[in-house]
């Protein structure tokens, strides 16, 4: 079961690019990586998912190196509304294993 480790918190100024890294040293061959965003008093919201290399959507990019032991969520030009907790999730495809990280609290400063 791949456990994940993330920084507890990060601060960033508005307009900057933010990179949040998640470590998952024991990731298995069939596991894939998903990131969620959670605002206070709300349920988590899906941001992006990937298996290897780079994935990009309208919200973020996800970088996964060849060894897949870590992944980096990249948020371009953050705004105050991006202040939230970001969770890294490793899902074991076909094995019904699912582990949320402890989350990174991102604070965007004006």
């Amino acid at each position, binding site marked *: 079961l791949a456990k994940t480790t993330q920084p507890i918190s990060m601060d960033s100024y508005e307009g900057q690019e933010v990179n949040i890294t998640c470590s998952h040293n024991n990731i298995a061959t069939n596991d894939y990586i998903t990131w969620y965003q959670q605002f206070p008093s709300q349920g988590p*919201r899906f941001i992006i998912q990937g298996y290897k290399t780079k994935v990009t959507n309208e919200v973020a990019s996800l970088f996964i190196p060849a060894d897949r032991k870590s992944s980096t969520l990249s948020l371009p030009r953050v705004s105050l509304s991006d202040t939230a907790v970001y969770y890294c999730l490793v899902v074991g495809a076909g094995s019904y294993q699912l582990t949320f990280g402890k989350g990174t609290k991102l604070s965007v400063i004006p």
Partner: protein
Amino acid sequence: DTAVSQTPKYLVTQMGNDKSIKCEQNLGHDTMYWYKQDSKKFLKIMFSYNNKELIINETVPNRFSPKSPDKAHLNLHINSLELGDSAVYFCASSPPTELWGETQYFGPGTRLLVL
């Protein structure tokens, strides 16, 4: 037209009581989940249901029992409530794909306080 809904939003009750939290999704998803988020904000999966079959049960006490009357509903029953059960409980669902647990849609949460 809420995708994943939970009732009630808030639940305050006494120790020893039995309570239920309801969850409904109108997304046509096959898999539904229950999560517990404690005061430290750790989000832990409790149950997962796929086509009315329990897939995983993450060592939660047997006082907790999920019940799925149909594919669109997954209710959580809690017997003999304890102080440590106080938390926010989230329901989620995901579409039928080859990747279990992919792209989950979460409900707004039910805030349970046990006195």
